[in-house]
């Protein structure tokens, strides 16, 4: 069973042969080599596989590849500018030491990007709710919240 879908991945138009049963995670990792999309549970519990679909964050492990048809998808590989410059969210994660083992990092970077791109202000407590779909076992979320706050304050 093969289905061809067209979609935009990290700003580039793509035509991809997929198995209609496969998850978006598997499509991104296996067909396009976008290995920043991590697999932590494959049932939508941990948030490690989060990508942006038309600007909104989704667990790509419970999102069928076929639903990505005509959508625009951003992974962490697409956050860096063409000349290799880091996005403000990426910079904030480095500056605030929000990265340890790095496995939850890509997903959090994308949710944080969605938050920053919203143009809205949020309190720290509201941010706690907004990132609560991501599990992290290394940081206790302290520096992650600091990083999201920093990126948010810089941009908005």
């Amino acid at each position, binding site marked *: 069973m093969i289905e061809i879908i067209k979609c935009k991945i990290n700003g580039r138009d793509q035509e991809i042969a997929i198995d209609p*049963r496969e998850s978006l995670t598997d499509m991104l*990792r296996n067909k396009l080599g*976008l*290995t*920043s999309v*991590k*697999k*932590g*549970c*494959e*049932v939508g*519990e*941990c948030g*490690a596989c989060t990508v942006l679909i038309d600007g909104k964050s989704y667990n790509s492990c419970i999102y069928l590849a076929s639903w990505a048809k005509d959508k625009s998808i951003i*992974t*962490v*590989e697409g*956050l*860096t500018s063409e000349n290799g410059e*880091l996005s403000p969210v*990426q910079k904030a*994660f*480095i*500056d605030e*030491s929000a*990265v*340890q*083992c*790095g*496995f*939850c*990092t*890509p997903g959090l*970077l994308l949710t944080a990007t969605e938050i920053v791109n919203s143009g809205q202000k949020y309190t720290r407590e509201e*941010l*706690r*709710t907004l*990132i*609560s779909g*991501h*599990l*992290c*076992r*290394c*940081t*206790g*979320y*302290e*520096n*992650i*919240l600091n990083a999201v706050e920093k990126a948010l304050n810089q941009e908005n």
Partner: protein
Amino acid sequence: MTIGKNIPRVDAFDKVTGRAKYADDLVPTGTLIAKVLHSTIANGLVKKIDTSKAKQVPGVIEVFTCFDVPDIVFPTAGHPWSTNIANHDIADRKLLNTRVRYYGDDIAVVVAENELTATEALKLIEVEYEEYTPLLTIEDAMNGDALHEEYPNNILASTKYNVGGVSFEEALENNDVKIFEDEFEVPTVQHCFMENPNSYAYMESGKIVVVTSTQIPHIVRRVIGQALDIPWGQVRVIKPYIGGGFGAKQDVLYEPLNAWVSKMLGGKCVKLELTREEGFINTRVRHAMKIHIKSAVSENGRLIARKVKMFSNQGGYASHGHSVVAGAAHVVKQLYQDEVATDVEFTTVFTNLPVAGAMRGYGVPQITFALEAHMENVAKEMNFDNIELRKINMIKEGFVDPLNSIPSLTNELDQCIEIGAKHLNFREKHKKYSNQEGHIRKGVGCAIFSYKTGVYPISLETASCRMILNQDGSIQVQVGATEIGQGADTVFTQMAAEITGITYDKVYIMSAQDTDVTPYDSGAYASRQTYVSGHAVKKCGLELKQKILDYANYLKESEIAVDIKENHVLDKDGNKIIHVSEVALESFYHRENSKHIAAEATHHCDTNTISHGTTFVEIEVDLKLGLVKILDIINVHDSGTIINPKTALGQVHGGMSMGIAYALSEELLFNPKTGEAYNGDLLGYKIPTSLDSPDISCKFVEKYDPSGPFGNKALGEPPTVPVAPAIRNALFNATGIKYNQIPLTPERIFNKVKDKGLI
């Protein structure tokens, strides 16, 4: 000077750009997929396995069962090997097992072209068991038939020690004391690394290569050699970035099975990745323990004697075995000193539960919960100041463990306590909260800890480092010690820069370990690397620096080069003689005397030193809901010199988060009849989300420890240790109820509150 500076993590850029590769990101196209069949009984024997239907599924390559594997038992603990057979870890499992010892034991493996096919084929395997009654509790196991023939009553080991030369009972004679007694229970919990264990194996150049998510690549190499009965040099283990370990990956997990399957298929590349659900049951867990403490205290608050009895639930296989409860038991005297006698007895018991192994703190969170909750109970019953009671009895600087000689070379515990107490205004609040009414109450609590650095003299401590000078005056650093998220690569880079005089930006550390390339190190555990491996980096750096100086002197036909700073070779007056890059280039391409400058050093470590610290916490509890909210929490650590404050803080945050959950929410639950886990997934098992996590404070009291390479001592594991008892003690302060079992779930809190008539 780079030591003590907040240099950004060397791996941060790659990790925020998605360039950091983990094992599963490197799997070659066309790799076959292996999936393990797990037993659906907890105790019994596999009588027969019918794989015929599974083998007929298109895309299935092969099915191996417990009847096909070599008749070799092997150990899995991430301990250095010992050439003395008496010190060997227990070898008690085969690649697949006919004798089933826990619900989920490994009995067969399917290899297929893809994951879906492998998973479907698993369902078609038919197994016939001879079933025995599951022995899930320590009591049942000690009264049941042996799971391992060599261990009657399922006692893996039972040990006693005594300090003082007289027994607890004898110590009571001629002493006017009060006796206090408590029984504590701590749960089975799981590491919940974000990256599930996974590996892939293939054969190349006559070797088996295994790429795996592990904390201990060199130990994995040895154990694969043992499990497959092949020379260790024929095994090559590569460890890329890993998504956390916390001790579960300080065991050899499925790497030997993965290697064997590849070998059986002529060296084809095969991947074996666990699902999250397997991660809970089929890796390792933290030991559940029952701890009984009896203490005799004089009127002035001095501990005269204590008697501690511990039982540790090992699960089905030995893994780290008795060493975890032993690690815990030896802390009894490293935290408080009894005036006359300390009597400790500790027993490890096999049961039909998932296998317990190393987990951040290695038994010390368990015993510290009991010791520190007990101390609080004693203070309350004696109407004694809880901080004073600790101060009177805790070990002081210069303490040397009477049994294993581990010293507290530097000890800023007193200072840690005062900083923590001041942060909360603890003494005043503790009094104020002691008499409250109503269903919303507040409480403050504290706890202290002692934690050794590495495992000397209990086990071998050894580490190696290699440095290579590049043409441009930069260096490559290779260590066997592993980066597992804690920031090891960053602090080693700082150390190398500090010692060689070559600036930090020119120090390139090889992050991936490859046992064919990176020198030996036992790996990431026991909060040892910054200390033990740090010494290796220091020694190697000094050697490399001397070689650069020697070559500079050769070039200058003099003996004036004595030091390197900021990439310049200096004379004794600090004048710049030559740039390191010039020395490097000449050393490579000199027409008469080319010399490729490199250094390698092993540090055989024969020192240890104890880290100390505290947690102070303020909580609010809603008695009607049984819900605890953390209002303020601080850890204060005496870990000697802090190499990189920001990465150190990161360690403390994560450790405290784990400690908070140990106190309040985490417990792996089992069906008491079958031994099957009720909540072995991230939905049912409650690790903290950002909504459950309070803001966390931390301070360091830095004092240079003379035994550390840069004055540093253990930090990786300790932050977890004192958190749970501090929270428990805060709840005691709020309610006056002794909660002697964790986690403090709403149900547990509510039931006692109701029993005591508080609501």
